[in-house]
């Protein structure tokens, strides 16, 4: 399952891992519900862990950060581990994604 627009791509082919790339600046958290529906479904089906690869996600706006927080809280509610894989040299990842760490103790963030 792949959602692809001229701005971003969300690849959920692997049921345990989503790869999000491009620029995600949707209008509101509600707009993200549709874009993240496959991620949410796979997380709900996941027995123990789920991974989101954002290494090629260049920009994410604050509505997107809220939507990532929603996924992290879903993981917390299901008591599963959620892993974010990103890049150290993308400033918003280094600054904002790391600040979500406190939402869930089983949130792992790996920036390379």
């Amino acid at each position: 399952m792949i959602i692809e627009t001229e701005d971003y791509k969300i690849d959920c082919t692997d049921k345990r891992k989503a790869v999000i790339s491009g620029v995600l600046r949707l209008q509101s958290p509600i707009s993200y519900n549709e874009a993240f529906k496959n991620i949410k479904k796979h997380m709900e089906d996941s027995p123990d862990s789920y991974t989101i690869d954002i290494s090629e996600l260049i920009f994410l706006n604050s509505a997107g950060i809220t939507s990532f927080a929603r996924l992290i809280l879903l993981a917390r509610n299901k008591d599963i581990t959620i892993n974010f894989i990103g890049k150290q040299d993308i400033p918003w990842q280094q600054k904002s994604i790391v600040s979500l760490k406190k939402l869930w103790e089983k949130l792992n963030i790996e920036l390379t």
Partner: protein
Amino acid sequence: MHANIKYPVYGSYINNEDRNASLSDISIDFIVPMELITQWKRCGLVADFIAYYQSIKHRNKKRVESILSTVTNELLENAIKFSSDKNKLVNLSLRQYSSKISIEAINICDIEQAVELDNFISKIVSEDPEVLFYKQIEYAVKHDKASSKLGIITLKKDYNAQIGIKISEKKSASSLYDIYVKVTLDSKELEGE
């Protein structure tokens, strides 16, 4: 000023610090039609342009461009979401001083939006940005809201930005307000030094 507005001036607007700065070597003003609410992508395009325009004079171009685009986009999205009339204009400007850069968005809102912004100011005055961030995250997730002002809190918390907000009643129309939101970034922080 309307009786419900407790904080007509907040943060960097209080001392008007930029007016005292010794160097002002770039100023770009954009007028963005509010109708772009239906063409949301234009927020990002304008933000990217301003960021690229400014970044070429910095050492760490890629980092500066990325941060300026993020900051400008949040300001612009905020201005558009909190405008009363979608046919009005948003004014966006970037100014560079000797050791800092400020980006300012100006838009027009109604009294309900002005009071909402005023309530937000009362929160950032009294609460630690990190505590407020988690509160707003929980609120936004619970209510599916776009108007959590998370963007402004994020800029303050993650980018060490100085925030200034000014709510000014329009003389020509008493039920409308000019809203000024300014984000000031330290050049060293911007360069990652």
